[in-house]
C-alpha cells in the first residue's frame, strides 16, 4: 500500500481584500482558515457546508485557479502551492473540476468534440489522430457515443451534459476531480445514474474525489472522509461514518438535526475577528467562544475545532 498521499493540504488559508479602490483601503475577509486534510488514491473526501462557507474557494485552490494566502498543498508529495495554472497543468498530475450547473459549464457554441479537444490542444503534444482516439475513449467511459461528439450542448439533456462535464474532467487523466454539487441541478432519476457513473470511474481508474454537497445521504454513500466547513473554518474532520453517526461539533450536530439557523452578517469572517465562527448560533456558547479562536483538537478519530468539545460530548 503506497504511503504517498494523492493530495495533501496543510493549513490552507485564503484572505480576500475587498472594496479597495482609489480612496479607501480594503477590508480583509477570511474565506478559508487553516484547512488540512489528506486524500489517498481511490478515496473520496466529502465537504459539507452552507453557502458562503468557503467551499468554492477551496475548490479553486485545489484546481489551481487561485493560490492560498498561506499553507501548503501537495500533489503526490510535490509542492504545488504557488505554481501557476499553466505549469500545474503541464508538470504535475492534475486536479479537475465538475461544476454544479450543467447548462452554464459548457460553451454553447462549441461541439462536444471541439470542447473536449481544447485541453488536449493547449497542453498535450498529441497529434490529431491521437486526440481523436482519446476523445472517443473518454466519451465511451462516460456512457456516450462517438457520434455525440458532433453535437452542440443544447441538444443534450441535463444528465448527459453532466456526463460531458465529467468527460472533460477525465480527458487529462487527473489524480483528483473536484465535484462541486454535481447532482443538485439534476432530476432524481438521473442523479443515481451519475452517482453510479462516478463510483464506477473511481473504481476502475483509481480516481480521488472531493465531493462538495449538502446532501447528507449522497455524502454518506460516496465519501470515505468528511470535512465540515463553517464560515471558512474546518469545524470537524474525520471518517464519514464517525462524523455522521457521532458528530462532535455543535454545528455538525445542528446540521444533522436540520436545526442550523442561517446567518446574514459576515462579521465572523473579518480578519480582525478572534473568536469562534459559530458562536452567535451555537447552543453551547460560553464566554471564551467570543474571544478566542478554537484550536483543532483530536478526539477519537476526528479533528474538531471547539473550545468545549470535551464537555459537550462527555455524556
Amino acid at each position: 500500500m503506497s504511503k504517498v498521499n494523492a493530495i495533501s493540504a496543510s493549513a490552507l488559508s485564503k484572505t480576500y481584500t475587498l472594496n479597495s479602490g482609489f480612496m479607501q483601503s480594503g477590508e480583509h475577509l477570511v474565506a478559508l482558515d487553516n484547512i488540512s486534510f489528506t486524500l489517498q488514491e481511490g478515496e473520496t473526501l466529502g465537504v459539507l457546508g452552507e453557502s458562503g462557507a468557503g467551499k468554492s474557494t477551496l475548490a479553486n485552490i485545489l484546481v489551481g485557479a487561485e493560490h492560498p494566502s498561506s499553507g501548503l498543498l501537495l500533489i503526490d508529495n510535490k509542492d504545488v502551492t504557488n505554481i501557476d495554472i499553466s505549469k500545474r497543468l503541464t508538470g504535475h498530475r492534475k486536479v479537475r473540476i465538475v461544476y454544479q450547473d450543467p447548462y452554464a459549464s459548457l460553451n454553447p457554441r462549441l461541439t462536444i468534440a471541439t470542447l473536449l479537444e481544447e485541453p488536449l490542444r493547449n497542453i498535450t503534444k498529441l497529434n490529431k489522430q491521437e486526440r481523436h482516439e482519446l476523445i472517443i475513449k473518454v466519451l465511451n467511459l462516460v456512457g456516450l457515443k462517438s457520434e455525440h461528439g458532433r453535437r452542440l450542448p443544447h441538444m443534450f439533456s441535463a444528465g448527459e451534459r453532466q456526463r460531458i462535464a465529467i468527460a472533460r474532467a477525465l480527458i487529462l487523466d487527473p489524480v483528483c476531480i473536484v465535484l462541486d454539487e454535481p447532482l443538485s441541478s439534476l432530476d432524481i432519476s438521473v442523479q443515481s445514474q451519475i452517482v453510479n457513473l462516478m463510483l464506477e470511474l473511481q473504481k476502475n481508474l483509481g480516481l480521488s474525489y472531493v465531493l462538495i454537497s449538502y446532501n447528507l445521504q449522497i455524502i454518506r454513500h460516496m465519501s470515505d472522509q468528511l470535512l465540515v466547513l463553517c464560515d471558512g473554518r474546518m469545524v470537524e474532520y474525520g471518517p464519514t461514518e464517525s462524523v455522521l453517526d457521532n458528530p462532535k461539533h455543535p454545528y455538525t450536530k445542528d446540521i444533522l438535526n436540520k436545526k442550523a439557523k442561517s446567518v446574514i452578517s459576515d462579521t465572523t469572517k473579518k480578519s480582525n475577528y478572534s473568536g469562534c465562527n459559530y458562536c452567535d448560533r451555537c447552543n453551547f456558547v460560553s464566554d471564551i467562544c467570543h474571544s478566542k479562536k478554537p484550536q483543532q483538537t483530536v478526539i477519537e478519530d476526528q479533528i474538531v475545532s471547539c473550545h468545549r468539545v470535551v464537555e459537550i460530548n462527555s455524556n
Partner: protein
Amino acid sequence: MARETNIYSPPVLPQSKKSHWEIFKHDTSATIGLTILFVLLLLSLLSPLISEDPHIQNASADLIPPSWHAAGSPDNLLGTDILGRDLFSRLIKGASLTIGTSTIVVALALLIGISLGILVASFRGFIQLIIMRTMDVILAIPSLVIAIIVVAIMGPGLMNAGIAVSIALVPNFVRLTRSYIIEEMSKPYVAAARLDGAKPGRVLLKIILPNVAAPLIIQTTISLSTAIVDIAALGFLGFGAQAPLPEWGTMLAEARTSMYVAPWSIITPGIAILVTVLCINLVGDGLNTAINSKSRT
C-alpha cells in the same frame, strides 16, 4: 430478467432546423428592408453608368418637375433643382456620401469601441475609471453639440462631421462590449476554458468574443441608422457636407429656398433618408429576432 430487445427506436434529437438566414427570411418586413438596401447599393455602384455628373448646372433646365409630371421629361427622372442639376444623379451620388460615410463612421466607432471595451474589461481599476468616465462625459453631450465643438475646432466639412458622429457613437460600443465581456467572464465555461490551459488571449478570442458578437451586431445596425440621421442633420445645419456636395442633408438645406416652387427638390432627399433609415431599422429588427430566437432553443 429484464428484456434486452428494445422495441423503441433511439430518440431523434431535435436538430435546429432553421438557420439564422431562414428565420430572417421568415420576417417579411426585414426581407423587404434588406432588398431595398441592396437596390440602393446597386444603384450607387452603377452610378457612373446610369446617371450624369451631379455637379453640372444647367440654367435653362432649372426647376423641371419629375418625369411623371406633365411638364417633366425622361431625361431627368426625378426632376431638377433650382440650379438645373439632375436630382436623380444627385440622389445616387448622395447615397454613397450619406450611407457610405455613415458606414465608415460606424465601422470606426465599432473598432475603437470594442478595443476600449476589451481594455476596460480586462484591466479594472484606474484605467477603467478614466475610460468609463470619459465615455460618460461623451454620452452626456448630445451628438450635435459634439459636432459643433469639433466643427468649431476643425472647420466644417463631411469628414469632420463624420469624426464628430464617430466620437458620439463610441461610448455605446464601449459600454456594451464591457458589460457583455464581464458577463461572459463570470460564466463557468470561461473558467473551465482557463482551467483547460487556454491562454487569456485565446479565451478572449475564441470563447468570449463569439458570444458577444450577436448583441454587437444589433447595436451596429442601430448605430448605423443613428449615424445616417446625424450626418444628414449636420449637413442640413451646414456643419457637415458643404454645398455643392450632394449629401442628402445638404440637399435638404439647399432646397429650402425653392420649397414652394419645386417641392420635389426637397421631398426626394427627405424620402431617401426616411426610407434608408427605415430599412436599416427593419433589418436590425429582423437580425435581432433571428439571432435571439436561435440562442433560445
